[in-house]
């Protein structure tokens, strides 16, 4: 049996807006195996980031978690008091974001920021804290550690800021690291370095990762599992290799196919239309207005998530036949 570090069960998160209540997450269920990397893929408005913020319990009014369970090592995070949750954040579950520079304090040196974290969470001070800070920066492969400790965020490149962020996250040896588009703003050469670092940290520290991205290449590089979200729900969950070989959901299949490539002389396959506005969610399967396989049933009924192959689940009445997409074309 796979051991799950994190289990999300039937999670509903909504936001109150001027135009009514927007249900951003509609019964999301997702299991994250310990020591592995799960990639959450989706376009804007699919609910990826709200999923991450829900796990961290950082949804603030007008947002609200309506119902569901978020089991972390068997404990339901939604039942913890704010004080108890404070001990989970950072120490058990840490998170890095797209704009590392904005997540760092611009008026404090790297050393001060690491010391603050070490003091607050671990009660470390003085020389012990400095030793630990040096160790952390080396762990994320930053060069010239002593000079770096005295530097301010604006003196660092984007890639270095992201490494410092990761070092801050590692300070309390969390079990789960959530990376929300953590490499999106970086150049490809820097992105590669960060991806390698994350892979290495997983192997060396046994870290479990949830990687939120719109970039399927990042998933191919890093993840063992893929979770595809559309309009606030999971539409496909699969082992990464199997997913890239033969995705079942028509949306996932098109997402894989519409990535531009050099050898294409013909036009790219497209997904017609746009990601639905969460206020005007289509009936039945929310993807049906854009789906090339849609039939009348898709408009009327909402499909449930079904396991079609071991560990490979899809929410679709008429999934793609295998294989939907031939990788040798690329």
């Amino acid at each position, binding site marked *: 049996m796979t051991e799950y570090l994190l289990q999300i069960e039937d999670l509903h998160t909504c936001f109150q807006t001027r135009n009514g209540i927007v249900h951003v997450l509609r019964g999301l269920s997702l299991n994250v195996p310990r020591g592995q990397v799960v990639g959450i893929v989706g376009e804007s408005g699919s609910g990826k980031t709200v999923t991450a913020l829900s796990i961290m319990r950082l949804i603030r009014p007008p947002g609200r978690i309506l119902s569901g369970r978020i089991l972390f090592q068997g404990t339901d995070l939604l039942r913890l008091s704010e004080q108890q949750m404070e001990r989970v954040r950072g120490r058990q579950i840490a998170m890095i974001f797209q704009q590392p520079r904005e997540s760092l304090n611009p008026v404090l040196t790297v050393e001060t920021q690491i010391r603050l974290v070490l003091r607050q969470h671990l009660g470390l001070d003085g020389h012990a804290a400095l030793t630990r800070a040096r160790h952390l920066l080396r762990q994320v492969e930053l060069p010239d550690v002593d000079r770096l400790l005295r530097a301010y965020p604006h003196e660092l490149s984007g890639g270095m800021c992201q490494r410092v962020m990761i070092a801050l996250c590692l300070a309390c040896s969390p079990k789960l690291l959530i990376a929300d588009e953590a490499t999106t703003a970086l150049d490809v050469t820097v992105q*590669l*370095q960060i991806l390698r670092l994350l892979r290495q940290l997983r192997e060396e520290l046994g870290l479990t990762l949830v990687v939120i991205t719109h970039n399927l290449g990042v998933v191919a590089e890093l993840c063992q599992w893929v979770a595809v979200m559309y309009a606030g729900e999971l539409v496909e969950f699969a082992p990464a290799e199997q997913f890239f070989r033969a995705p079942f959901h028509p949306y996932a299949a098109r997402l894989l196919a519409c990535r531009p490539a050099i050898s294409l002389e013909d036009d790219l396959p497209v997904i017609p239309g746009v990601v639905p506005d969460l206020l005007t969610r289509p009936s039945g399967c929310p993807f049906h207005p854009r789906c090339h396989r849609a039939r009348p049933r898709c408009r009327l009924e909402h499909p449930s998530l079904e396991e079609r192959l071991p560990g490979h689940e899809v929410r679709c009445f008429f999934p793609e036949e295998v294989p939907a997409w031939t990788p040798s074309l690329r």
Partner: protein
Amino acid sequence: MDALLEVSGLSKHYIVSGGLLRRHILRAVDGVSFTVSSGETLGVVGESGSGKSTLGRCLLRLEEPSEGVVKYRGIDITGLPDSSLRPLRRHLQMVFQDPADSLNPRMTVGTAVLEPILLHGLARGVAARRRVIELFELVGLSEEHVARYPHQLSGGQQQRVAIARALASNPQFVVLDEPTSALDVSVQAQLLNLLRALQRRLGLSYLFISHDLSVVSYMARRVVVLYLGRVVEEGPTRALFDDPKHPYTRTLLSAVPANTPWEQRHRIIPRGEPASPLARPAGCPFSPRCPWAVQRCHEEPQALQPVGPDRQVACWRSIEGKIVWTRPEA
């Protein structure tokens, strides 16, 4: 094919003050030359700080170049006073990355497209309004969108409006500066197909600027690679991607995330951090990070030299065949 746009020795330098009495020269673009033929797309690839956006802006004189000549149909537009430049401006247009920033939020998108038609005196009254609808249909929007405000449209639709606005003056040359980078993957494919269709239909020439190599490979038959303001390599897309001649191009291509989890890539990890355009080395700009660099690379500036048909590279070691590319992963 005729050269529609000829750029030679184009530079843009900024003076940056570095404290008391210290002045640094930031060479954002440094001695760049290329030509764009009529009906062709030239791709410009580079990471942050490569000067790719500054280059695009200099071509249209949104930024005054410090040195060099830009010729449009044989006319040197760098020396032209504003009054003589104005009639030419309608032939040279630009589309930016973020459509939300380039459209006036208080103006209907119809008015935004109407404006250049009136400004350039291309039509008036009913004829001008008819032309607006025609342009909306050309970019895949419909008459119903004309009266909307930018916030009532999706990102993809806003970018279509920005394209319609750029096309309103019947330009021949359009600079596309990361036109799909802010869009979702599924919408990006639609926009790329649209841009290619418009090019075929209207005989447009594009300068397509992007950090995304797969997008450039899909759009452009020819590519220039920029590093710290200098062209390090130029050539037909296919040849350049299949067999990059410059160490930087090779590094950049090797960093692109894999398409599938089972794809094996030979990765080149550059040394150190990306250099700043403020502290550019005397020799080859890539030399401090290049795994193949020798002493001469650090000292001697490199000029573009022909290698093979229609290809140029600024690396003496590559030209003299001194580099064995199959270097094990660092």
